[in-house]
């Protein structure tokens, strides 16, 4: 199982991002091998449709779950199409902390979008 988290820096101790699809990096935690990997978010500078693109990138990497600060309607549509579940983290935490919170079932699942998308 792979979990992707929007992050401000390239390691698991970095602060989580306030944006999902326009975050600087995604940290991908592989729960089978217990390893972390970081990728630069190729969607962050898109003129439009960053949400869809970010989800596509994560979907192609085989991500099963994303931990996000908020989600626009297009990102949510795309997550559903890629069969990726999303959970909302509180701000100002680190990547490691929100992963613990996820496993402790402290993060609510997002079933409707939380924002209108910001372009």
């Amino acid at each position, binding site marked *: 199982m792979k979990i992707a988290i929007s992050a401000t820096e390239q390691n698991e101790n970095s602060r989580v991002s306030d944006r999902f699809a326009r975050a600087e990096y995604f940290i991908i935690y592989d729960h089978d091998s217990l390893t972390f990997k970081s990728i630069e978010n190729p969607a962050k500078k898109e*003129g*439009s*449709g960053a949400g*869809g*693109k970010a*989800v*596509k990138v994560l979907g192609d990497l085989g991500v099963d779950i994303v931990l996000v600060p908020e989600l626009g309607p297009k990102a949510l549509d*795309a997550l559903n*199409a890629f069969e990726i579940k999303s959970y909302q983290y509180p701000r100002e935490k680190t990547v490691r902390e929100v992963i613990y919170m996820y496993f402790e079932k402290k993060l609510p699942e997002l079933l409707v979008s939380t924002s209108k998308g910001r372009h």
Partner: protein
Amino acid sequence: MKIAILSGKGGTGKTTLSVNLFSFLKKATLIDTDVEEPNSHLFLKGYDLLEEGVYKKHPVVDDEACDYCGACGNFCNFNAIIPAKKKVLVFQDLCHDCGGCKLVCESGAISYKDKEVGKLYHSTIAKNKKFIYGNLNVGEVSGVRIIESLKEISKNEEILLIDSPPGTSCSTVAAIEGVDYCIICAEPTPFGLSDMRMVVELLRAQKQNFGVVVNKSNLGNDDIYQYLDEENIELLEKIKFDREFASILAEGKILINHSEYFRNKMKNIVKKVMGDNCDQ
């Protein structure tokens, strides 16, 4: 002769200038290409009203025929089409209708469907005076298609005035494409000057002829005049701010019918820009 009135900064007086120049001329067509927030029509009461839709195509994917190769998604620059696991997502509002996804699709799964993005409103204001404006539907991302329709309809007009959108984006570029002259309507404030510089850069890159009308010339500071001087840009006219003007405009009236001062300013601008090109 085709003349675009543009500004960079919003609220400098593009529409005031456009509708008054239009009213001053005996024979002319005005198009309002600020389709996100058209407002020339607030000043121009016409007849023979005609409404028509403007349409844009967007892709529709046959999920059965699709082999999920991903080519369409890789091609699209705007993330309007995203192939997922068992279906292809299409975000209609992001689509720029370039036709590229269908071209790269080898399984023939993509067709196109029309969607109305806005409307055109035609009217006659007086003999030899036509006015057309466009209005973008709420939620649509780009008004370029509507601006192109306005330009296409009016391409054979002898005297065409174009009330352009503010800024220097795609909409503005579409509005000024193919014109003979651009009038920048600027205001002498730091913000006004800063945005005007971007317009000047745009117009120079597009190799357009242009001049500047400084509106509300008794406000702000003198930096704009120094800039025009340094850059060797023609100052067509200075128009003062007057509370009386604001109140006439707020009633939706045409200023030249109420102010001799303003009428003379329009006359000078027309003379400088059009020369003997027009019959007043």
